[in-house]
């Protein structure tokens, strides 16, 4: 199963014509797990190796990892959830601060029997991964921080429009009117972010229109826009949580991965302010979405990092 899935999952992308209509969602089955008050949707591949949880960013879903999950599955137990509020996972009324999201995610991991994991987070998934690692450092063997910022550790500059920051922070945080304007225009919205001039895809055709459509459909579900914007509306809470956690540097090895057409070195600079053991890597000719644009390179960086850091292969303690 694992051996068959891996090539199946990856090869089609290498030859897929640009703008193709195929959505790869059919290649992986989504499962469900109830954890606390949340019904998590996730896919899982390669049950043999040590566990790694891959966290998607905004405004995406676990679909963002479709090209990477299979590549890691020969050596790792790869778990890819839709974060609370996204994709097929429940859209709760509240609790979108990353402290609460991380608590819910940990309940999900424990529900799968995973009490020690490696965590990889892209974009806002990186915020969640940090909140998890900072609150339960003994349960996170390794942290992989991909094209992400950290509130209270440099993210504010990305928000400051008077210094070239992005407009979407204020827009997403504005409340109600943001949902009103984007409703029915989800594809325009996702397409804008993935192909935007500033940090969008280096090769605009590396993600198909059908994949953009997949994200757009996920945002069209009732509550999805509200939830998605709530990840931004809680940034002030995250800022104060991070600022407290940041007093204690993360103990586990951290790999920070940037993209030269995305945030560049900013991800590494952010995480160096909250962790002791950090190595950085830069993927070239790549925008803000390396899992989709440079899946081979990203998977290789993650695998090499996990192989070189012994804690990753340490067996999980029995509970």
């Amino acid at each position, binding site marked *: 199963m694992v051996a068959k899935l891996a090539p199946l999952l990856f090869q089609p992308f290498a030859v897929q014509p640009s703008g193709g209509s195929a959505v790869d969602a059919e290649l992986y089955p989504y499962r469900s797990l109830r954890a606390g008050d949340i019904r998590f949707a996730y896919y899982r591949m390669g049950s043999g190796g040590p566990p790694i949880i891959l966290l998607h960013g905004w405004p995406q879903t676990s679909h963002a990892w479709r090209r990477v999950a299979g590549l890691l599955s020969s050596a790792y137990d790869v778990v890819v959830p839709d974060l609370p509020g996204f994709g097929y996972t429940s859209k709760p009324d509240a609790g979108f601060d990353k402290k609460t999201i991380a608590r819910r995610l940990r309940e999900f991991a424990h529900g799968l029997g995973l009490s020690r994991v490696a965590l990889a987070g892209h974009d806002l998934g990186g915020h969640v991964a940090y909140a998890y690692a900072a609150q339960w450092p003994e349960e996170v063997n390794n942290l992989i921080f991909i094209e992400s910022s950290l509130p209270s550790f440099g993210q504010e500059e990305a928000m400051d429009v008077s210094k070239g920051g992005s407009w979407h922070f204020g827009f997403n945080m504005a409340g109600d009117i943001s949902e009103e304007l984007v409703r029915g225009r989800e594809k*325009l919205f996702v397409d804008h972010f993935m192909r935007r001039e500033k940090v969008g895809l280096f090769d605009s055709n590396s993600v198909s229109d059908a994949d953009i459509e997949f994200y757009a459909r996920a945002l069209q579900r009732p509550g999805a826009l509200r939830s998605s914007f709530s990840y931004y509306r809680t940034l002030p809470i995250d800022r104060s949580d991070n600022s407290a956690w940041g007093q204690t540097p993360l103990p586990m090895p951290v790999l920070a991965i940037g993209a030269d057409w995305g945030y560049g070195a900013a991800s590494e600079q952010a995480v160096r302010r909250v962790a002791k053991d950090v190595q950085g890597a830069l993927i070239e000719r790549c925008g803000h979405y390396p899992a989709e644009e440079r899946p081979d390179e990203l998977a290789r960086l993650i695998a090499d990092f996990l192989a070189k850091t012994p804690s990753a292969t340490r067996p999980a303690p029995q509970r």
Partner: protein
Amino acid sequence: MNTELDGFHHKMLRAGDVKIHAVVGGDGPPLVLLHGFPQTWWEWHKIMPVLAERHTVVALDLRGAGHSDCPQGGYDKATMAEDVHNAMGALGFERYAICGHDIGAMVALALAFTHREAVTRVAILDAPIPGWSQWEASFADPLVWHFAFHMKRDLPERLIYGREYDYVSAFFSERAFNHDAHPTEEVEVYARAFAQPGNTRGGLEWYRAFPMDHANGLVWKRDPLAIPVLALGGDHRWGPKIVAMLEEFAANVSGGSIADCGHWVVEERPAETAEALLKFFAQ
């Protein structure tokens, strides 16, 4: 709803390379009224009759709004001020007083700097001013999230299209203290105007020119205005800061806050606003 005012007539004025729509009425020394976002000349309709008792009132639609032209460029406040000056010239007025609200206040102040010989007095109603020492810091105010949104090119037009009423009504209510200031039929007037071809883009262009406006403001304030400046704001919006803000640009500033009032001073507190303006412009 009917947007005609008894005693006022409409004119289309050739102002340089654009046509500017003006609503004119009354007797006495000329007073120009410049509206803000997302409005038109109609924002002044509650106080125009009383102002017209002592002034020749000229309420203009700014470049990009109402029935004025919406060209591709020229939305920095210095160029928009030139439109106003040319429009007043077309009406035969060489010297005049100005009152501006919101974006119109930025244009009014720009005009006072670029045509010092023409502007006798200027009233600034509830607006932050480019060039102000707190201008960049004010972008962090959650109520001005729209600055960055409007400055983003192309996308806002697509998101607002067909939802002009929702956008405009949310915009009014978020910044109002008195929610009876904009009844539904009034909001519809502005929403319809904002939805006219070119007007959505025109209104957003006012914000896209902010970097140039800020650079100009920083230069202008080195040589402060000598004419009297009235600075008035709602006590729930810019009122508490507005006098100190304008003192960075002018030597002779009076004014302050209007009580129980948000951003929409003319519609929220028409009597108080008209009284303050008449008193200031009568001096």
